[in-house]
């Protein structure tokens, strides 16, 4: 049996080489390398998604055809959505920061099933390649929207089979990661680290993992049924064969709504780590945040119908979903209150991660409040399927997951690469990005209320000015993105060496070297009576 003593403890995980060259990465079961492989593959796919988004905004800079016609526009927003949702924001923080940090933060050497972890990444890459294949080969890029609604998804002549199958495969990656994290948290916490001494980022990963585990299979079977429809003509959602397209929507959103909590819970978890460190104060309401996390995960299963208010559901379903939607907003509000309360009378350190965290709260609240407009039946009827919805989910998903991701990467950067980035460029990048972000998405609220539909490549002349502002915003935001990425990439290689605990954090990752050795700890830490996270 392999023993731990074979791996040196004074060599960082980046320097430890078991194989030659690239095999050190693609054959590695080290959770830290797997987390970075997710990061690098996701960055690549993210830029493809950004390019598609920029193409859409360029098309929308003026009414009528600008650079593409309707069919191409439909294909662009479909692939943009599939990449961003299934390959970026759903794996998002769990795949990158969860993989890298979860074992360290709970005092473990690795996750429960390291080989399964590597398999999850392989499956992710396979799914991504399948989706890309649907664009490059066959009868035309899918044009159904990332939601693949029936009946068009089985009638469309475009190359849907690899795209849908790719999404199906990506689901397995998500499920296996969730499974791994649940077992890891149950079985591998350090001695003395009871559940109520575990930091909040692992807690958020726990809640998220349950959603990944229980919700993803439902979309799995739904997508499989679309595939079976296209291949064998099994018409479960086909009205001509007695099926109900609304049932497809039910099953699709039974997953896809909990999926947004997969996106946001770890994002909130990271914020809950950043804020105590940069206010040098114990988080306000530790237990309330845990309770809210679990409440969001639980109630989030029961609100999916708010995506379907205008579909033809019964009135009873409509108002039930509306009430539940309002309920699920409450725990999120509790978290915001707790974050702000942590800052109050704290010793605030204005560093890059804190800027991202503070602006996260601002942007996320805008997104969340706009969700109330959508959750109320009377107002939803006017804004459903308009640019208002597009603004809402970009504020809450891109604003939420994105800002938190950038905050997290600037927070844990010194730990991961053992170097520091240039703070001035990082802050400049944050500022430019945020201004561009607001300029890009805020006009969409206005446009939606005025009636501009979503997923249209054309619009009425009265919407022109706001669209110009939005497109300009996309360029400014991208410029900010470029600044941020170049700063980080350069600093990872050439930045000044970082110390073990540059921010005076109180969680376990700050007690190991930067970068950590392969097995994280020389000796597994033991938590005493008085120990715990955020003990300032």
């Amino acid at each position, binding site marked *: 049996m392999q023993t731990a003593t074979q791996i040196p403890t004074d060599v960082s995980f980046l320097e430890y080489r078991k194989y030659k060259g690239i095999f050190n990465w693609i054959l590695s079961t080290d959770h830290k390398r797997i987390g970075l492989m997710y990061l690098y593959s996701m960055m690549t796919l993210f830029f493809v998604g950004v390019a598609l988004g920029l193409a859409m905004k360029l098309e929308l800079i003026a009414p009528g055809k600008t650079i593409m016609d309707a069919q191409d526009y439909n294909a662009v927003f479909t692939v943009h959505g599939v990449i961003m949702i299934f390959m970026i924001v759903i794996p998002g923080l769990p795949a990158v920061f969860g993989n890298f940090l979860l074992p360290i933060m709970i005092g473990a050497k690795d996750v429960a099933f390291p080989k399964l972890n590597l398999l999850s990444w392989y499956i992710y890459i396979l799914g991504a390649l399948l989706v890309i294949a649907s664009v490059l080969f066959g009868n035309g890029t899918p044009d159904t929207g990332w939601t693949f609604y029936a009946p068009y998804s089985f009638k469309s002549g475009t190359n849907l089979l690899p795209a849908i199958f790719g999404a199906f495969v990506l689901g397995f990656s998500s499920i296996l990661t969730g499974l791994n994290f649940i077992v890891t948290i149950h079985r591998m916490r350090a001695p003395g680290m009871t559940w109520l001494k575990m930091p909040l980022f692992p807690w958020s990963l726990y809640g998220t993992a349950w959603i990944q585990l*229980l919700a993803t299979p439902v979309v799995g079977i739904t997508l499989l049924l679309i595939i079976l429809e296209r291949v064998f003509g099994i018409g479960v959602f086909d009205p001509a064969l007695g099926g109900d397209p609304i049932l497809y929507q039910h099953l699709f959103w039974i997953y896809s709504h909990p999926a947004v909590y997969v996106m946001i819970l770890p994002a909130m978890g990271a914020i809950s780590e950043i804020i105590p460190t940069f206010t040098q104060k114990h988080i306000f309401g530790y237990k309330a945040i845990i309770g809210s996390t679990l409440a969001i995960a639980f109630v989030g*299963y029961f609100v999916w*119908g708010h995506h379907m208010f205008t579909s033809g*559901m*019964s*009135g*009873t*379903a409509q108002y*039930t*979903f509306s009430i539940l939607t309002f309920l699920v907003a409450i725990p999120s509000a509790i978290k915001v209150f707790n974050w702000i309360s942590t800052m109050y009378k704290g010793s605030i350190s204005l560093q890059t991660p804190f800027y991202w965290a503070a602006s996260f709260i601002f942007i996320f609240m805008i997104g969340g409040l706009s969700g109330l407009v959508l959750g109320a039946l009377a107002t939803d009827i006017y804004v459903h399927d308009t640019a208002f919805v597009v603004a809402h989910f970009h504020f809450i998903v891109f604003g939420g997951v994105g800002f938190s991701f950038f905050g997290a990467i600037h927070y844990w950067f010194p730990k991961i690469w053992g170097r520091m980035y240039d703070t001035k460029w990082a802050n400049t990048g944050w500022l430019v990005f945020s201004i561009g972000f607001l300029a890009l998405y805020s006009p969409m609220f206005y446009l939606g209320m005025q009636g501009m539909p979503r997923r249209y490549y054309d619009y009425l002349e009265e919407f022109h000015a706001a669209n110009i502002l939005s497109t300009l915003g996309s360029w400014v935001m991208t410029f900010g993105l470029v600044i941020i990425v170049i700063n980080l990439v350069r600093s990872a290689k050439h930045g000044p060496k970082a110390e073990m605990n540059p921010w005076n954090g109180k969680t376990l990752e700050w007690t190991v070297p930067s970068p950590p050795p392969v097995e994280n700890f020389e000796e597994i830490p033991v938590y005493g009576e008085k120990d715990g996270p955020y003990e300032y």
Partner: protein
Amino acid sequence: MSNEKHHIVPYRTYIFVLLALIVLTFISIAITHIELADYTVAGALILASVKTFLVLTFFMHLKFDKPYMRIMVGFVLAVFLAVIIITFLDYYYR
């Protein structure tokens, strides 16, 4: 190595459970001859649920496992049931 007590279930227990399951199977077939109208589905589902309970408890060892295992299973079933019920809020009231 784990220091947990390894509870060994006697073969006899499993045989009794199987006999119970077979009896329940025959009962479910038999009641199809009784005209239950609206309660046909309920009858079938109740019997299937009892059989499932026996499989979960004995064959799948839940009775002898730590309590958190039973809690997890119960939780998952509860979520699934809630989802079906809410889905029917649409179809039943259309």
